């Protein structure tokens, strides 16, 4: 009974021989010259035995075997491999799913082995597998074939292991080869891929692109570049189409790169760059990045272009051309390069509208892998307003402090004046009330002296008059303050005034053997002062000095000189000096070291008060037993009376050097 047989061999002679042989045996024979044709036939024809040539163009025998074995409807088929290279390549035909293998030798042998196979293939259920390759011992090894096979093996290994997907399709676009990477990429089994239309692996837009590309005859390499990759099974791929042709056939090799990861990475970088550009752009402050050394601008935001002279037209996005040079100042760049650290400075410049603008310039290094400064970031904060605000704050603080100082001075002056005024008022009233009875007593005493009275009584009357004078003196001293509101300023020649005052005391001084030495500065300016009060100062100073000198060398030395905005007068004496424990108290009212009856304790207090009234200062320098020196400073001009300098006020309280 005849059997259904398919013979696949690209060699027409072999095909014809076997077909004839089988047809003579009464079998139904179909033939195919390559794998693709065979697959076409198998779509509608189910043979019992298939003969497959191992070495064929398009789909190889091996692949065809696998495909056949993967087809459920062909489960029972008896598969026979025809190998022309059995002598050169060891073949485990059972691994390919084949039941038998015939080594192609002479035509006679081939016919004999076909007959043997038909025996083995017997009716279904009784078929036997051949254990070895039939006719293997009848073929001789050919060296050239071995070498070719060896080199093919190398290429196969390469193709199997390369990461690019490789397809080959025939002129009718049917896939005849797909390497494992291609299979993996497409996600369709090799068996299914082989023989199917190449463009069927694409869908939608990708399908259109590939269709359009393959619509025209492919006579030169074509490519779908990675710049515009297409989708393949959810991956982004670039494709290279390489036409391959020889005398007999033409096919196309397709190399597929999976660029998904790279594209994703690129996209990520691009997104990040966009994000950074946007971020930098959104900064209201001028921001730019420069290359070290040459200071070429790599990037500048629009604020920088608007506000910084010379930055207009600089690259606004990351990676733009670095055409322009950074504007001054270069100090921040230099410092960042030198210190490899951030740098901050304030920079004042004229803006385009001519106004002065203060910028706070921040510069930061960006390092490369080796730790060198690769880029420098600079951004500027306009702190003009802040500066103004700070200045205004400082000014108002200063003004406040000044006001406070003035207030304190005014308060001190007020307290002192109030004190003086109350003492003055009291003194004035008391003085008048004391002087009147003193006057009456004194007058009566003098009238009594006109009478004829005993000498003892005359002496008593003299003593009475002395005591009246003493009481009068104290009273008048006290009263000096009641006149202080009558402060009459005129231009005073201090030398002339001193001479005049000294003249009043000349008699007393001569009597006490006191010499007055004058060291007058020739260029001493006249000063604004109350002449009477100043005369009072000189009188008191001289009386005081005289009283301090009881024996020995008795000299009063007055020395004048211009100083700052006023004059300095030094009164020195060769007297007993002032004890360091007392130097603080000498200007206090009612303080005296003189014997009772000699001093009122008001002399220096009056001096102090008058000098203070003139916004001047006085201090005492002395050592017990070595004389005393008083240093008086008086300003040339009298300010408003309630407005003396507080520094002088303080100095005033430091009475002297305690040595």
């Amino acid at each position, binding site marked *: 009974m005849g059997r259904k047989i398919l013979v696949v061999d690209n060699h027409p002679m072999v095909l014809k021989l076997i077909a004839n042989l089988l047809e003579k045996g009464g079998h139904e024979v179909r033939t195919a010259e390559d794998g693709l044709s065979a697959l076409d036939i198998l779509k509608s024809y189910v043979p019992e035995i298939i003969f497959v040539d191992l070495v064929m163009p398009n789909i190889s025998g091996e692949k065809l075997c696998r495909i056949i074995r993967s087809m459920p409807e062909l489960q029972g088929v008896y598969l026979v491999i025809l190998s022309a290279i059995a002598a050169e390549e060891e073949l485990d035909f059972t691994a390919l799913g084949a039941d038998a293998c015939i080594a192609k030798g002479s035509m006679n042998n081939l016919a004999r082995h076909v007959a043997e196979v038909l025996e083995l293939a017997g009716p279904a259920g009784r078929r036997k597998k051949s254990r070895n390759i039939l006719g293997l011992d009848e073929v001789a090894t050919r060296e050239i074939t071995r070498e070719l096979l060896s080199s093919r093996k190398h290429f196969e290994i390469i193709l199997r292991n390369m990461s690019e997907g490789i397809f080959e399709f025939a002129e009718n676009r049917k896939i005849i080869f797909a390497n494992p990477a291609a299979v993996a990429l497409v996600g369709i089994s090799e068996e299914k891929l082989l023989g199917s239309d190449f463009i069927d692996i694409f869908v939608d837009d990708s399908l259109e692109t590939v269709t359009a590309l393959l619509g025209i005859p492919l006579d030169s390499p074509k490519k779908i570049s990675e710049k515009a990759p297409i989708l393949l099974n959810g991956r982004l791929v670039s494709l290279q189409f390489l036409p391959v042709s020889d005398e007999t056939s033409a096919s196309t090799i397709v190399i597929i790169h999976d660029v998904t990861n790279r594209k994703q990475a690129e996209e990520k970088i691009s997104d990040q760059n966009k994000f950074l550009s946007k971020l930098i752009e959104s900064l209201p402050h001028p921001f730019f990045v420069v290359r070290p050394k040459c200071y070429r601008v790599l990037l500048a935001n629009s604020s920088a272009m608007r506000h910084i002279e010379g930055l207009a037209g600089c690259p606004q996005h990351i990676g733009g051309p670095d055409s322009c040079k950074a504007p001054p100042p270069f100090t921040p760049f230099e410092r960042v390069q030198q210190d490899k650290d951030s740098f901050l400075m304030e920079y004042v410049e004229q803006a385009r509208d001519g106004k002065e603008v203060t910028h706070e310039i921040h510069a930061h290094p960006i390092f490369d892998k080796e730790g060198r400064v690769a880029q420098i970031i600079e951004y500027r904060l306009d702190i003009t307003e802040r500066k103004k605000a700070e200045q205004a704050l400082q000014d108002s603080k200063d003004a406040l402090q000044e006001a406070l100082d003035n207030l304190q001075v005014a308060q001190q002056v007020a307290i002192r004046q109030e004190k003086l005024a109350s003492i003055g008022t009291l003194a004035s009233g008391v*003085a*008048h009330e004391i*002087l*009147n009875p*003193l*006057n*009456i*007593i*004194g*007058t*009566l005493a*003098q*009238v009594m002296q*006109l009478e004829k009275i005993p000498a003892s009584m005359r002496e008593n009357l003299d003593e009475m008059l002395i005591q*009246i*004078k003493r009481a*009068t003196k104290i009273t*008048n001293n006290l*009263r000096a303050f*009641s*006149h202080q509101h*009558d402060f*009459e300023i005129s231009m005073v020649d201090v030398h002339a005034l001193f001479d005049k005052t000294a003249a009043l005391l000349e008699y007393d001084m001569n009597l006490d053997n006191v010499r007055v030495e004058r060291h007058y500065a020739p260029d001493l300016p006249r000063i604004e002062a109350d002449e*009477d009060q100043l005369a009072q100062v000189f009188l008191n100073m001289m009386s005081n000095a005289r009283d301090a000198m009881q024996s020995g060398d008795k000299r009063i030395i007055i020395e004048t000189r211009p100083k700052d905005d006023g004059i300095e007068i030094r009164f020195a004496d060769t007297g007993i000096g002032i004890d360091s424990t007392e130097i603080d108290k000498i200007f206090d009212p009612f303080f005296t070291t003189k014997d009772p009856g000699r001093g009122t304790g008001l002399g220096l207090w009056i001096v102090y008060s008058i000098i203070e009234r003139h916004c001047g200062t006085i201090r005492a320098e002395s050592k017990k037993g070595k004389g005393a020196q008083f240093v008086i400073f008086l300003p040339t001009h009298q300010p408003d009376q309630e407005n003396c300098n507080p520094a002088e006020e303080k100095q005033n309280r430091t009475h002297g050097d305690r040595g």
Partner: protein
Amino acid sequence: MKKKIKILIVDDEYAFCRSLKIFLEKIGFQTIVTTNGEHALDILKEENPAIMTLDIRMPGLNGYDILQKVKRTHPDLFIIVITAIDVPKMEEMLEHSGAHALLHKPIDLQKLSDTLYGFVGHLL
């Protein structure tokens, strides 16, 4: 006997007036005393003294007031102000008001007599 020169003593302290009166009469003057300013003006009109000693601070019409009034009515009157008041520029002020001399209390009688004789010499 030559007619004595008449001095009007004006001071609200009677004790002082009295002691001054004793002194002035002792040194040869005729005196009239009053402790009241208004009264002093009346006496000036009636008695027409050549000299007046004048206190400044007095109840009622005070020394200044009197100076202002007599400056025109008695331009020849020699006025010596004797006061316990002592303020700066007082002398100029009094001079301007018509006083001829200023003596401070407690008074030095020697100075007073010097002043008086100075004036009297001028009269003679």
